[in-house]
């Protein structure tokens, strides 16, 4: 197991470095002079020159990249717009996104796993059909439209919940439900498939032949084995939620990291954009690693290889 963990950690390093390079490159892919773009319209030559020196844009790219990375680690790198250290700016937003993603994943796991189990156990019943349609609709549903529909229903028509902003728990319900419903479709589909596969295994047939009650077989043998791939899917979905929250955050005005990145694009705060995107991608990679490790922990067969 230790060897497996070390191997996975080592494999992670090039990907994280690659992510940081791609994120760093964003500012340098801009057609034209980044200093001029940061300075904005109507800036004088002196303004542009001072920005160029201030952000080290006149240095070689390698040096700029190393300065960028060092600045993140020592928290010396500052947002262009607010001039505050970038991590001080980003971490509270990240916490908001993580909170949203965490509640959403609980919602989607509960809905997805329940729906998947019931439809596999009662195959071809009305609930199975419902669950299939639900998955199909969920996979094709534009998340921001789902958010708008929920606002029309719960905020505009019924007036039960606020349509956006951040405050008490009532502000969290609609965005979390939006994200949660969207991902529950994938979890339901995966749970159903995994349950059906285990239900067809020889050892399940054997315990049924031994005369164990069906309910006991399902809870004691089938569920436990069927949940292994489901855990992976839930973990992967959690990673996607961290990034995919951008649209939901914009619909509901939730002050998360994704929305902050988009706002920073408009205010030409490229440092905030670079670091924000790097932060989301890195946490996605880390969550994926965690999922792999948990997976290996439950299923010893995977530790080899």
């Amino acid at each position, binding site marked *: 197991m230790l060897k497996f963990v070390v191997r996975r950690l080592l494999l992670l390093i090039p990907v994280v470095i690659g992510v940081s390079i*791609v994120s760093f490159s964003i500012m340098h892919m*801009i057609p034209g002079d980044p200093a001029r773009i940061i300075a904005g319209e109507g800036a004088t030559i002196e303004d542009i020159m001072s920005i160029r020196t201030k952000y080290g844009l006149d240095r070689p790219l390698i040096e700029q990249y190393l300065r960028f990375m060092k600045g993140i680690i020592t928290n010396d790198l500052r947002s262009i717009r607010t001039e505050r250290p970038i991590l001080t700016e980003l971490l509270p937003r990240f916490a908001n996104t993580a909170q949203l993603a965490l509640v959403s994943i609980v919602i989607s796991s509960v809905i997805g796993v329940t729906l998947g189990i019931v439809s596999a156990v009662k195959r071809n019943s009305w609930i199975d059909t419902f669950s299939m349609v639900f998955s199909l*609709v969920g996979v094709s*549903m534009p998340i921001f439209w789902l958010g*708008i529909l929920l606002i*029309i229903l719960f905020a505009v028509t019924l007036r039960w919940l606020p349509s956006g902003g951040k405050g008490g728990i009532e502000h969290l319900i609609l965005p979390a439900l939006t994200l949660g419903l969207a991902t529950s479709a994938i979890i339901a589909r995966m749970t159903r498939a995994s349950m059906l596969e285990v239900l067809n295994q020889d050892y399940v047939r054997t315990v049924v032949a031994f005369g164990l009650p069906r309910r006991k077989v399902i809870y004691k043998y089938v569920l436990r084995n069927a949940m292994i791939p489901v855990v992976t899917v839930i973990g992967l979905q959690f990673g996607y939620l961290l990034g995919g929250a951008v*649209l939901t955050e*914009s619909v509901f005005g939730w002050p998360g990291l994704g929305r902050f990145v988009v706002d920073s*694009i408009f205010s030409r705060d*490229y440092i905030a954009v670079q670091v924000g995107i790097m932060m989301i991608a890195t946490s996605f990679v880390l969550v994926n690693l965690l999922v792999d490790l948990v997976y290996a922990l439950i299923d010893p067969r995977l530790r080899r290889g």
Partner: protein
Amino acid sequence: MRMKKRTSSLIILKRMARNKGAIFGLIVVLLIVFVAIFAPVVAPKDPYKQDLLASLEPPSWKHPFGTDVFGRDVLSRVIYGARTSLSISALAVLIAFVLGASVGTVAGYFGGVLDEVLMRFLDVLMAFPDILLAIAIVAALGPGKINLVVAIAIYSFPQFARVMRASALTIKNSEYVEAAKAIGESSFSIMVRYVLPNALAPLLVQATLRMATAVLTISGLSFLGLGVKPPEAEWGTDLAMARVYLEIAPHLGIFPGLALFLTVLGFNLFGDGLNDALNPRLKDR
């Protein structure tokens, strides 16, 4: 040889015809494509003509989907939106297809260090979850239709490359490739004449599914204000405006989203059906 090929595609067509979901998907896709191409004929009004006296009207006989804040006919805007969305996504997916198939063929066929480097590069691109990579590219290039095409092509091509590489790995060890090598065909010729054509089926499935993602991404970026700029009719752009007026005109939030949802659903159903028809063993999972 010719005969055999025709019968095998016939079998696939027959399998498709039995799949209700796939047929439904195909009909929806054809309908949307038709509407997109003939938008000027199909649309009852000019989607850009403002009528401030008829602002935010609910659906009526005159305006079946109502009007937006500038009094423009929402039905006509939804119809023209199909045009915007499909033209951008088709172009982007085409570029991603060509780029991905080339990278995948080279990586799979040659293997070794080249394969390793290309695959690690794809890993890095795929480390950006959901539409984040597209957002990053648009952040760099700036909004606009051409940049949107570039962003979505870059964001989509790793999937094509993955699928192509997997096929190339099996095909390169086949007897016909061995035979081609034996008679002295060049690597390039083998890749173009044997590897690529034999891997076309899974690539086409991928293309259909990627169309769904591309349509979603275009409207998502436009919703964020990073894609198609108003006043151009686009579902995501129109939904972003609808969000502002939801309290007084909820109908604005329904129709562009419905069109978007149906388009994505159509491509997904058709793609899944195509996949099932090509790999019948996977069907019941």
